[in-house]
C-alpha cells in the first residue's frame, strides 16, 4: 500500500531515480504526442476529414473557446500551456481505467510541479502583457499594506491548486484500492466511474483556475482603468 506512485521506484542511482510517476508521465506524453503526430500527419483542409482529426479539432477548439470565455482575448498565446495542462491531467484521469496504471497526478510531486508551473506562468504572462513594473505594482494595490497579503495569496492559491488535484486523484486511486480489498466486485466499478468523473472535473477545475489566474494577471490594467472610469 502506497500513497503516491513516487514510492514505486524502478531504478535509482544516488539522487537520480526512475519512479512510476516519471515513467507513467512519459507514457502519457508519448501517447499524446504519437496520437497528435499520427493524426496531424494527414490533416485535411477540405470539408471532409478523418474522425481523429475531427476529435482533435473539437478538443482544441473547445479549449480555445474556454480560454476565450474566461476573458483572454488572444487564446492562441495561452493555448499551449493551458491546453497541455488540461490534456495531461485529463489523460491521467482517463488512464485510471486501465488496470495497473498509476496516474502521475496522484503524486503530490506532479501536482506541485504543475502548480509551480502555474505559479511561474502567471507572472510571466502578466509581465509579458503589462510590463514588469506595472505587473509588480499590482501586488501593492489597492495599498502597499496589501503587498504581503497579495504575495501570501499567490503562494497559497498555488498550494491549494497542488493539494486539491493531488487530494482528488490520490483519494480516487486510494479509495479504489481500499474498496478492492473489501468489496472486490461491483462497487469498485461504480467508484471507478465516479473517479473518471471527478478526474475530468479536476482537470477542468485546474485548467480553469490557471486560466482565471492568468486572465487576472493580464487584465489588471483593464480592471483598474474601468475602476477609475466608474467611481
Amino acid at each position, binding site marked *: 500500500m502506497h*500513497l*503516491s506512485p*513516487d514510492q514505486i521506484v524502478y531504478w535509482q542511482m544516488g*539522487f*537520480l*531515480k526512475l*519512479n512510476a*510517476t*516519471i515513467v507513467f*508521465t*512519459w507514457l*502519457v*506524453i508519448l501517447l*499524446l*504526442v504519437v496520437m*497528435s*503526430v499520427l493524426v*496531424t500527419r494527414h*490533416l*485535411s*483542409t*477540405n*470539408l471532409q476529414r478523418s474522425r481523429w*482529426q475531427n476529435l*482533435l*479539432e473539437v478538443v*482544441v*477548439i473547445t479549449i*480555445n473557446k474556454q480560454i476565450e470565455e474566461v476573458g483572454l482575448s488572444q487564446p*492562441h498565446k495561452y*493555448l*499551449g*500551456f493551458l*491546453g*497541455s495542462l488540461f*490534456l*495531461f491531467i485529463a489523460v491521467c484521469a482517463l488512464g485510471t481505467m486501465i488496470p495497473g496504471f498509476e496516474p*502521475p497526478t496522484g*503524486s*503530490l*510531486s*506532479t501536482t*506541485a*510541479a*504543475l502548480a*509551480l*508551473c502555474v505559479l511561474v506562468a502567471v507572472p510571466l504572462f502578466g509581465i509579458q502583457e503589462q510590463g514588469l513594473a506595472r505587473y509588480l505594482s499590482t501586488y501593492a494595490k489597492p495599498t502597499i499594506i496589501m503587498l504581503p497579503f497579495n504575495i501570501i495569496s499567490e503562494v497559497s492559491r498555488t498550494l491549494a491548486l497542488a493539494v486539491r488535484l*493531488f487530494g482528488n486523484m490520490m483519494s480516487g486511486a486510494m479509495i479504489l484500492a481500499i474498496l478492492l480489498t473489501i468489496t472486490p466486485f461491483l462497487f469498485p466499478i461504480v467508484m471507478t466511474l465516479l473517479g473518471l468523473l471527478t478526474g475530468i472535473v479536476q482537470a477542468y477545475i485546474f485548467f480553469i483556475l490557471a486560466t482565471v489566474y492568468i486572465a487576472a494577471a493580464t487584465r489588471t490594467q483593464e480592471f483598474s482603468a474601468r475602476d477609475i472610469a466608474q467611481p
Partner: protein
Amino acid sequence: MLIDWFTVIAQLVNFLLLVWLLKRFLYQPILSTIDAREKRIADEFADADAKRTQAEQQGELYRHKNQVFDQQRMEKMNKVSAESSAEKARLLAAVREEANALRTKLLQALQDEQRSLQVTLRDRAQQEIFEIARKTLKDLADAPLETSMVAVFIRRLRELTGPEKAHFQAGFKDIESPVIVRSAFDLSEQQRGLISEAITALINPSVKIQFETAPELISGIEMNANGQKVAWSIADYLTTLTQRVNQVMQSRDEQNTEQGSHDKHL
C-alpha cells in the same frame, strides 16, 4: 515525505517538454488547418458573393436589355401597325376609286346600252308605225283617190307661179329625154291627156311624155326628167315625215349625251 523534489523537477521538465511537443505537433497543425479551412470557406463565400454580385449585375444588365428590347419591339410594332394602317387606307382608297371608276363605266355602259336599246326600239317602232301607215294608206288607196290625186297634181302644176315656176321651167327647158310621169296605179287615157296638157302648158309643147306605173308610190304621182323632179305622193309625205322625226330624235339624243357627260363630270 509526499513530495519528492527530484520528481518535482523531473515532472517540471516533463511538463515543459509536453507543452513544447504538443505545441509543435498538435496545436499549431490543428490551428493552422482550421485557419486554412476558415480562410478557404471565407474565400469561397467571398467568391460566391462576388459571383452573386456579378450575376446580379448581369441580371440587371439583361433586364435592362430586355426592357430596351421590349420598348424597341413596341415601337416597331406601332410603326408597322401605323404603316399597315396607312397602306390599308391607301389600298382601300385605290380600290374604292377603281370600284367607282368601274361602276361609272358600268353605269355608262348600261346607259349606252339602254340608249342603244331605246334607239333601236324607237327606230323599230318608227319603222313599224310608218310601215303600218304606209300599209293602211296603201289599202285605202283606190281609183277615186288616184283620180283626186291626179287632179291635185295637175292643179299644183298649174298653180306654180313666180320664181318657182321660172325655176321649174329652167330645169326642164332644154331636156331631150322624155319626161317620165310615174304613178301608183295605171292612169286612164283621160288622166294622161290632162297631165300631158298641163305639162306641155308649163314647159313647152314639144316635150315627150312617158307614163310608168310604180306601186311603191302608194298613192300619188311624180314627174322627173334630167334629174329634175316634181312629185306629190303619200310616200313622199311619209318620207318627209320620217326625215323630220329622225331629225328631232337625233337632236334629243345629242342633248341626252351632253347631259350624261355633264352628270358624269359632276
